[in-house]
């Protein structure tokens, strides 16, 4: 890895960390397009619980790992930072593995 690429990677990671750790706190809390479609057809109460009607979300079952500490990005700010670092590590590691990259000369 050249020194200049190191700078680019470092700067890019810093931007990602700031977006996920800080800017994400200002993101819209409204349901996204998919979630909105999943609830279309149902009536909801103030807390978002389904009270009637037919919608896709009626079929929804819980997540296998709903009890994990970071479930639903639980820890504000920290979740984003952890996610960026883990994704970077897993991404570069998996790509190295999956593509069977030759050992560095």
């Amino acid at each position, binding site marked *: 890895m050249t020194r200049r690429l190191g700078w680019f990677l470092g700067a890019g990671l810093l931007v*990602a960390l700031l977006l996920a750790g800080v800017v994400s706190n200002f*993101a819209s809390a409204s349901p996204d397009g998919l979630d909105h479609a999943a609830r279309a057809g149902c009536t909801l109460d103030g807390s978002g619980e389904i009270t009637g009607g037919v919608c*896709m979300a009626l079929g929804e079952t819980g997540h296998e790992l709903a009890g994990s500490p970071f479930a639903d990005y639980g820890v504000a700010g920290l979740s984003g930072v952890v*996610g960026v670092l883990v994704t970077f590590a897993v991404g570069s590691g998996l790509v*190295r593995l999956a593509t069977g*990259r030759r050992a560095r000369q």
Partner: protein
Amino acid sequence: METQAMHIANGIVDGPVSALFIVVAVAALAVCARRARAGLEDRLAPMAGLVAAFIFAAQMLNFPIAAGISGHLLGGALAAILVGPWLGALCVATVLVVQALLFADGGLTAIGLNVVNMAVVATGAGFLVAAALLRVLPRTPAGLGLAAFIASVVSVVAAAEGFVLQYALGGTTALPFAEVATLMAGTHLLIGIGEGLIAAVTVATVARVRPDLVHALRRSAPAPTIGAAA
């Protein structure tokens, strides 16, 4: 602030169809890994990690698209432009797996559905549109940005309709297919515009700083120079 889950949850699509899409996803990613191997350079592994990390971060930034509805970047077109379609699909799939395992976002049984829509369909559609546009657009940061914008819009709507197809095949609730298709297309057209703006700024910035790192700006796969020290 509570961040919403953003990917397909368990139980929306039935077991057999979910299982089928896990098989499709694994097969598609295997093809991607094999094809990515051919063009892999020393620097591309950390670059792929950075693209995945950036997409993870950008997916957390829900922007409002209409009253009470938000959207977030999916990242397929962005990944395809920066690291190519094969590596790009692997990057988006990495994001989805980390989100499902670490953040309980996107059901584990639904992982195949999510990977096919966002890693395979969105990245593939984004790549095809961007590649076609870059035959006529100038290979400048502005031209690349415009290509990224249009490719993103198409890729997001394509991914949304991928879900509609999956729901038509194995939806567990009885909703009219056309209604779901129209609703998903409408919201995701708006989400695609938001994603397009983010992707355009991102690729134009990288093209200005390090054009050599932008896959879409290489005229063809660079032949390895024998003897050139990395």
